[in-house]
């Protein structure tokens, strides 16, 4: 399978703090991938490394087989919309489309104009005076005008109201269907992602907790409810991701490697959200205990 983005033990350090550490992952072509994690997990750092805005301190990242840092040639294939969609606020949308044409090797101005016209974005107002949703649409239209093979979006919908968020995702899905662009978008809004993304990368505390195709990840996890469990082996369970206990009952979210047939356990299917939350909660508790110097 064609890999669009590959990271191999990738790391980035700010001072003595690792913002991203030992990050190894592969993003296959044609996917719409979600990069999920709490604030400060390293999502933006990973995206900035992928687009060549940051230089790795450890390991390597490759986009279409090339190292992005300092590689202006490779940039033509990457579209990037940074957090809060920074645009030159005094420029109008029409001026931004024109400027993009002067600054890029490959540029489909007609595509951008058509998209913006369909969305009813005024061409002659400074984008600083547009609504947040309209500004996000302008940024997306500009990124798509490059006809990128990989589109990176950093929290594209976080600051938008529900209607603008839906309209943004509609535009994005429509254009992905047309172009077949691979997309990697970071978000902490899980509900939106379940329908949009077919690949998931969970980052927490600077490390990759989980990565894979959504269908595979959901199929490989189950929730077990049964009598109190103290760490023995359960047939069909590869790993316990998260466990909560009362004095007589245990609820486990597990990764399976076969059917769980032990009749003591009630086995339930899980949603993508269940899986993500289990991995995030797990990481948070471990970090907090070690930082406070107390036993877990």
């Amino acid at each position, binding site marked *: 399978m064609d890999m669009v983005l590959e990271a191999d033990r990738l790391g980035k350090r700010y001072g003595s703090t690792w913002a991203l550490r030992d990050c190894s992952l592969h993003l296959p072509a*044609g*996917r*719409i991938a979600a990069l999920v994690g709490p604030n400060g997990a390293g999502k933006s750092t990973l995206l900035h490394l992928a687009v060549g805005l940051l230089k790795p301190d450890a390991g390597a990242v490759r986009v279409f087989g090339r190292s992005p840092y300092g590689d202006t040639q490779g940039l033509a294939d990457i579209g990037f919309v940074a957090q809060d969609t920074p645009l030159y606020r005094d420029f109008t949308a029409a001026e931004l489309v024109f400027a993009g044409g002067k600054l890029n090797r490959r540029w489909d101005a007609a595509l951008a104009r058509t998209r913006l016209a369909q969305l009813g974005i005024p061409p002659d107002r400074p984008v600083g005076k547009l609504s947040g949703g309209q500004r996000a649409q302008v940024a997306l239209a500009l990124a798509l005008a490059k006809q990128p093979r990989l589109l990176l979006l950093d929290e594209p919908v976080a600051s938008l109201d529900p209607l603008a968020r*839906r309209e943004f*995702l*509609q*535009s*994005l*899905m*429509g254009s*992905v*269907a*047309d172009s077949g662009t691979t997309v990697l978008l970071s978000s902490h809004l899980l509900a939106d992602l379940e*329908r*949009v*993304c*077919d690949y998931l990368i969970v980052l927490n505390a600077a490390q990759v907790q989980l990565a894979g195709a959504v269908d595979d990840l959901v199929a490989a996890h189950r929730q077990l409810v049964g009598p109190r469990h103290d760490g023995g082996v359960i047939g069909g369970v590869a790993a316990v991701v998260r466990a909560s206990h009362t004095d007589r009952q245990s609820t486990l979210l597990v990764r399976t490697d076969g059917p769980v047939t032990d009749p003591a356990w009630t086995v339930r299917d899980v949603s993508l959200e269940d899986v993500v939350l289990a991995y995030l909660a797990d990481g948070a508790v471990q970090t907090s205990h070690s930082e406070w110097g107390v036993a877990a």
Partner: protein
Amino acid sequence: MIEFVLDSRSKVNTYMQLVQQVKQALRVGLLSPGDQLPKVRDVAQSLAINPNTVLKAYRELEIEGLVGGRPGVGTFVQRTLAGASLPNQAELRDDLVAWLHRAQAAGLTAEDVIALVETTLRATLADDTPQKEPA
């Protein structure tokens, strides 16, 4: 042309909801052979869902022989699920409406009716239809 609707509270995953809606439309005669399914791009955009999800649903329907893709044109219905029973459904429906009015007059609630239909259905059809394995 049909329009897909998603139930966000449903536990059924998105691609299966699309498959079920096409089958439902085939069963009641809303779609018949030769009809075109909505374009992948249009479904992805209007529902704000991954185009791969729509492709997966259409591929599933294709494997079942219900629809066929014509490259560059679209996906078209090849077979109906309405079968020979469709012409008889209108008359049966009228009978059912009359019966439901009688049930209502006799004091049955909607839940009573459903329970009665389900148990009767099981009891009556169990003898001549092989039971399907529960999924």
